[in-house]
């Protein structure tokens, strides 16, 4: 009787032992704190060995970058950009890589210059692609460097297949800081340059972010008209019943009121915490 169940019993014990050791290995490897290696192979090697499979290999590096966009560590931006750089070197038509590297991946103003640098490299590789200078202009717009934004906006508008509205919008970029309503219009115009539903969604988040700022700035101005002074915090708008609640910041870490109310340039301006 025992002999009949001997082998299945041993198999059962061995199987559960394997599961136990697997979970132990997982725990001990977590304790090791292995340093992550952000390695991207050089273009010359990959270009040589990929043969006619260049597009597929480029796609792999592109996907590798996309999968890292959600990571929090600072080193990740360099890693994402290196992967995307390799992807576009292998396949220069991979224009979505530029919007990922130049617009989506940089978080916060301190990272935007790296995005701009990446996009400018893209302009050298694909000088006839209007979308790249357009995205550079958008980044300068975020940095409130409207002169530079206008400059790249103009470059984009002169390239083949550039939509007509670019020319009309060029002048707007030359306006000075704090024109969030123009910014929202600028972004809405930009949405037309994106065809993919996934990308569109992430861009719409930025439009929503900017529209909230426009809305809050209008309410702050209304507050000033009614009470004769600038509010000190956005919560005052809620307290006085001008708005029900402060809208959720879909891009930054929450909206706040610029406290330099004494300076005409910043008075009543709503900012986003990055």
């Amino acid at each position: 009787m025992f002999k009949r169940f001997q082998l299945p019993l041993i198999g059962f014990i061995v199987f559960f032992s394997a599961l136990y050791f697997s979970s132990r290995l997982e725990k001990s490897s977590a304790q090791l704190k292995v340093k992550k290696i952000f390695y991207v192979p050089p273009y010359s090697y990959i270009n040589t060995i990929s043969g006619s499979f260049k597009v597929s290999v480029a796609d792999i590096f592109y996907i590798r970058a996309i999968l890292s966009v959600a990571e929090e560590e600072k080193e990740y931006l360099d890693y994402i950009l290196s992967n995307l750089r390799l992807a576009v070197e292998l396949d220069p038509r991979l224009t979505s890589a530029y919007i990922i590297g130049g617009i989506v991946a940089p978080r916060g103003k301190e990272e935007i210059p790296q995005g701009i640098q990446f996009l400018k490299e893209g302009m050298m590789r694909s000088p006839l692609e209007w979308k790249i200078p357009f995205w550079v202009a958008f980044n300068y717009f975020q940095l409130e460097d409207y002169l530079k934004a206008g400059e790249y906006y103009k470059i984009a508008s002169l390239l083949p297949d550039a939509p007509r509205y670019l020319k009309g919008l060029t002048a707007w970029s030359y306006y000075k800081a704090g024109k969030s309503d123009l910014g929202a219009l600028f972004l809405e115009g930009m949405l037309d340059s994106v065809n993919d539903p996934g990308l569109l969604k992430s861009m719409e988040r930025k439009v929503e972010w900017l529209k909230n700022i426009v809305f809050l700035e209008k309410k702050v101005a209304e507050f000033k008209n009614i009470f004769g002074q600038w509010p000190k915090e956005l919560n005052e708008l809620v307290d006085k019943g001008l708005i029900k609640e402060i809208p959720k910041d879909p891009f930054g870490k929450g909206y706040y009121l610029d406290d330099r109310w004494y300076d005409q340039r910043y008075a009543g301006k709503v900012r986003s915490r990055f």
Partner: protein
Amino acid sequence: MRKILAVIFLNFIQGLRERIFLGVVFFFIFLLGLTFFLSILSVGESAAVTRSAGLSAMEISGLFLVIFGFTFSFYNDKTSRMIEVYLTFFSRYVYTAGKLCSFLLIAFFYLILAGIFWVIILIINGAFFWQSWLGILSIFLKLSIALSLNLLFSCLFSSPIFALLCTLFIYASGEIASQALKAVIIYFKSPISLALFKTLKYILPNLDKIDLKYQLAYAQVPNANFLVSMFFYTFCYCLFLWILSTRIFIINRS
């Protein structure tokens, strides 16, 4: 001609019955599933990724099918003495031509089958355009060269492992030769070495030149001249390899 058709028919039916064929079909379905998920991950480029990854999957699986299938079948004929039966009724030219054509037909049949699955994925992802089928033609031409190389090495070597590895390596060098030689030429500046490398480049199959994966990934259609040149290049290369293989086969048999 009727004799060649008879060999083709016999080998075609046998080739489809082999487990390798079924295995490769399952391998392709796995790769196609991977392609589908890759296209979901590749934000903004899902159409291009579906096209290029699907074509790559077809090429890799097709290469496995023709190389393993052909080598297995050729050496199986030898070990089972089936080759003696063939050569009693057919000439050596008919045997090698029939063997080659039957596997070309198997490759074609497989690519059509795989192409149907691929087109379904393209339609689901909204990436289909009717010239996509040209990608299958380009892969078929590449596999034809791989098969001819396999025939050559199978006739040349008594070991199937050698034949298999040589075919794979020559195929890989045909893929990367132009880029690799460009890099090597920088270090050798003498005219003799340059001429040598250029000759080597033209002797190796120029597989990168008959590839349409890049153009078709971005829905770009090559012109008719290019397609005709591709076809004639492959035809001449395969014909040369078949003649060479048959001569070697005759010498070995005698």
